[in-house]
């Protein structure tokens, strides 16, 4: 099993979710995150004092998948989340040793 972690732009989340569903992914876990990278942050002004806000809002998605789906899932995300502008995000894949469905105790493939 693999864990695919994707960090994407927030307004792309809905599209990515739909594409993943269409592909057959049945579940995922999402957290709000902030990204720091090449994409410039922005400047805020309060009473004439300027604040550099280096962090940008991102959506972080985690998806546990079968070994052989991992590449495709990464592909689907990459394709859907792409705008071509700096800051589109990253996707990375890590090995998982086991996964359990809490409700039933089913393991690995059966747990998805």
């Amino acid at each position, binding site marked *: 099993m693999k864990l695919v972690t994707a960090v994407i732009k*927030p*307004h792309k989340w809905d599209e990515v*979710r*739909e594409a993943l*569903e269409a592909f057959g992914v049945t579940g995922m876990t999402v957290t*709000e995150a902030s990204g720091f990278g090449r994409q410039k942050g922005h400047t805020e002004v309060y009473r004439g004092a300027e604040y550099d806000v280096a962090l940008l*809002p991102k*959506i972080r998605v985690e998806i546990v998948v079968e070994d052989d789906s991992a590449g495709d899932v990464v592909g689907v995300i990459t394709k859907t989340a792409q705008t071509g502008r700096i800051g589109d995000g990253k996707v990375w894949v890590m090995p998982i040793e086991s996964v359990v469905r809490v409700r039933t105790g089913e393991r690995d493939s059966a747990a998805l």
Partner: protein
Amino acid sequence: MVPTGDTAWLLASASMVLLMTPGLALFYGGMVRSKSVLNMMMMSFGALGLISVLWVLWGYSIAFGNDVGAGMLGDPFEFFGLRGLMEDLTSEEGGLPVMAFVAFQAVFAIITVALISGAIADRAKFGTWLIFAGIWATVVYFPIAHWVFAFDAGDVVGGWIANDLLAIDFAGGTAVHINAGAAALALAIVLGKRKGFARDPMRPHNLPLVMLGAGILWFGWFGFNAGSAVAADNTAAVAWVNTMTATGAASLAWLATEKIRDGHATSLGAASGIVAGLVAITPSCSAVSPVGAILLGAIAGVLCALAVGLKYRLGYDDSLDVVGVHLVGGLVGTILVGFLGTAAAPAGVDGLFYGGGVDQLWRQVVGAVSVMTYSFVVTLIIGYLLHKTVGFRVDEDDEVSGIDLAVHAETGYDLHVSTGAGRTLTGATAGATGSSGVGADADRQTEGSVKS
């Protein structure tokens, strides 16, 4: 001729008191967890809507219609729908527009009902709450308002506490606070404890909201108390000053109690002390001197700060401490008139400490106990009847996951930076036809909906 200055003050006061109910909604709403803030606020807003209608229909008439027996009840039909009250003159040879008085008293009825809801946070069916509110106002509040606020005038006979017992309750320590507090206790018993009461933390989700609510309540309370002079006169001014200073003293006293007992003076304590002081000075603001008001406020602050812990000992889930603050504060304020009342104040009655003996004291106690008993017993009956028939409590699941979502299909806050991630409009019920179909708008993208 209409006394315009008095009318101006009465209308301003009525407006200020109306604002108290939204203020209460914030005060209460900030104190619950974020998953039930809307339901909490809705109990106040629901009362606001409902009682403003019932008051016009039969409330005013029950409270201020000619007495139909023993000072217990006004004639419900005399002014049904406020009939005949739109004429220009009120008293014989000129006086306040009756409608201004109708307005002022209406907002008292509204907030009294809303106050009760603090005892049943997070778990009451909204529909049942509305039914309860209507029945309770009709059989508990409107009659008690008659007892306390309906003074005999010419041929018109009023209520027994105002005219026979002669207890002093300037602005509603009995009719409003003891009444609401006793009813709150009854309902807390009827509905039972929240799941996790006294074990899970149920801490306030938004304290700035609570403090804003307290500020609005204080503001409105000047209308409540000083407005109860029904004139822009010296009595109103004395009531105003006492309302300020007793409240300040109560807030300080609550903070001091906390600091000594818990080691920290909290903002919730400041806000709670404010309300405790306001409650206690309500019956007494015309009867004590400003220094007496400081004393009275301080006593109320300490006692209420101690009383809010009672629910854990006695095991009733009065979620937002309506008993600890309104019942206890109302009792303190009402009874202390018997001690701290001074003939130099507008009410003109000396209490025990000012050489007046126990004469006024027993009247105060009888008034307080009567209202408390009537309210508690009748509320218990209404509450149980509703609980056994339509049901008063939501499903345990809905309580755990959050009553806002279950009952109102809403979430209080959506502060996520993401642009509404994961939410999609699936249907907009549209237009005068009432059909709930999907709009014909070409811009509508149906693939936006979830097929989970």
